[in-house]
């Protein structure tokens, strides 16, 4: 299968000396043409940095990347014609109308005037922006503005589209709307999409394949089903009333029949079990017998959250919080 993106051993450090931040320490993956590829990771994992390198915005310390068959280091000019990029921050011009935004973008890529008009109209209609097309975009809703960002990136018919957290900050309705548009992009235009997200359900919903990235490294790769299937059975999550009893709880749970891998994360204990419903009574009895009071217990089918926990050794949400604190 042909790959639209091939990244290998990407390393990137920001700054020098004691203040240096290692953003990427050897990221690599391959994206099959015509698919949506997800890059899932908490804040500060290195998603934007990877995207910036693949879009020629930034250069890696080492490693190679080929996008649409072109080496980003050797042929950045050709890569720029082949790609569309929606940065994490909004990138439309708020002082111009929707149509003016698209028109300038068309000129930048050297499209002929007639094509600019028809392509602009087509995109405005397709993204449901036609009614607002001639209004200043400052007055648009957040969801409409983000859709304009995507339309701008598609204006020149790129072969590979990079979407860096396209739905962060959108309300649920606008997010669902954006999801539909993103699926449409691969189907209608045959564009390859690299999508970064820190929403597990977004990666699950949209990505044909995905990598989970944590602290500048790929920790897992596969289709969402493969990743979830790699975990046996269900996930049981036990919240302890007293985090100090973590060790006692772990010993008690480990002794229960049918319990597999156990991961502890503060007051939370995550256990993989063959069959949640069948194992739960024994598990609760064991904890009760060991004198460990509980705050809550949940049983769930495996989710990407569990995949993340398994590979990164901490829960996605605690990693996300930690990342936000570091980045702030």
């Amino acid at each position, binding site marked *: 299968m042909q790959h639209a993106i091939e990244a290998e051993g990407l390393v990137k450090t920001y700054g020098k000396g004691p203040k240096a931040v290692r953003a990427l320490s050897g990221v690599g993956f391959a994206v099959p043409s015509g698919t949506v590829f997800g890059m899932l990771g908490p804040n500060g994992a290195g998603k934007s940095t990877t995207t910036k390198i693949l879009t020629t915005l930034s250069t890696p310390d080492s490693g190679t990347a080929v996008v649409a068959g072109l080496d980003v280091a050797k042929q950045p000019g050709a890569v720029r014609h082949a790609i569309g990029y929606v940065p994490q921050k909004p990138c439309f011009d708020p002082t111009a109308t929707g149509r003016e935004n698209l028109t300038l973008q068309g000129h930048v890529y050297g499209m002929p005037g007639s094509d600019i008009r028809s392509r602009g109209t087509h995109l405005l209609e397709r993204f449901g922006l036609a009614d607002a097309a001639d209004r200043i975009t400052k007055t648009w809703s957040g969801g409409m503005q983000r859709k304009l960002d995507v339309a701008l990136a598609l204006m020149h018919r790129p072969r590979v589209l990079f979407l860096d957290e396209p739905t962060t900050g959108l309300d649920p309705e606008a997010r669902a709307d954006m999801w539909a548009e993103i699926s449409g992009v691969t189907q209608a235009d*045959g564009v390859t999409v690299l999508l970064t997200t820190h929403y597990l359900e977004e990666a699950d919903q949209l990505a044909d394949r995905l990598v989970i990235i944590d602290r500048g490294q790929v920790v897992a790769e596969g289709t969402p089903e493969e990743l979830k299937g790699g975990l046996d059975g269900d996930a049981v999550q036990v919240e302890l009333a007293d985090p100090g009893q973590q060790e006692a709880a772990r010993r008690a749970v480990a002794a229960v029949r049918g319990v597999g891998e156990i991961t502890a994360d503060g007051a939370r204990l995550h256990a993989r079990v063959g069959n949640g419903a069948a194992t739960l009574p024994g598990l609760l009895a064991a904890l009760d017998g060991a004198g460990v009071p509980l705050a809550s217990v949940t049983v769930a089918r495996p989710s990407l959250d569990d995949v993340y926990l398994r590979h990164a050794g901490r829960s996605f949400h605690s990693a996300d919080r930690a990342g936000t604190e570091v980045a702030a």
Partner: protein
Amino acid sequence: MSATMTSAAPAGTAGGQRGPALRHAVYLTGRSLRILRREPVYLAFTLIQPMVWLLLFGALFERVADLPGFGDTSYLEYLTPGVVVMTAMMSAGWAGSQFIDDMQRGVMDRNLTSPVSRGALITGALAYQAVVTVVQSLIVFGVGLLAGARYDGGLAGVLVVLLCAVLLAVIFAALSCAVALTLRSQESLIGVSQFLTLPLAFLSTVMMAPALLPGWVGTVARVNPVDWAARASREALLGNPDWSAVLGRAGLLAALTLVMAWLATRAFRAYQRSV
């Protein structure tokens, strides 16, 4: 799967690589001018200070021109070309603020992953500032004329004043862009621009005849581009200008323009290393 990919050649690669840079600069200039057209209040805002200088100082210091050293011009006539070039400098000091907006949003990042050259991004900003300067200069000039200033230099003189104002504006706009790309915050840009422009306006012959400046100010004024522009402008408006003096100073301005434009383009590298 690759069969479903769009087979169209990437748009724009057919054209040469020189032509697009110029076209891009034109489109980017147009983008900025559209902002100005929609919010003309901004232009009015940049004219408040020059009007105060021109009308208030022009009236307040009217008798200054009686001092020897001013020749037989009125103070208003002396002051007007100086205020034109000073306005050009002060307004150009803000040129980098659009870059900062663009960097804080994703606009700069999107531009830098498009085929737009870094040169065109700079040239677009400078060309926009040049257009703004011509409009501002004509307004300041017009007010000076309405208030009673008269010049023997005629159209040629006015064109020289416009040229000097534009060159000075481009110098400071380029500097402002370089500062914006390096420091990346509106506050720093405001600080640098305040720190630089007011002293440069006062350490020149904009308000006071060369013969009447204190010695050290005269020395500083000789290396002050604002002074080059002010002197060339006043000279060109005389009935019988010393063209070699005008050309010499305009030449200095042109040379400095090139240096500053180069500096601004260099500043892009610093920005790209940091993203």
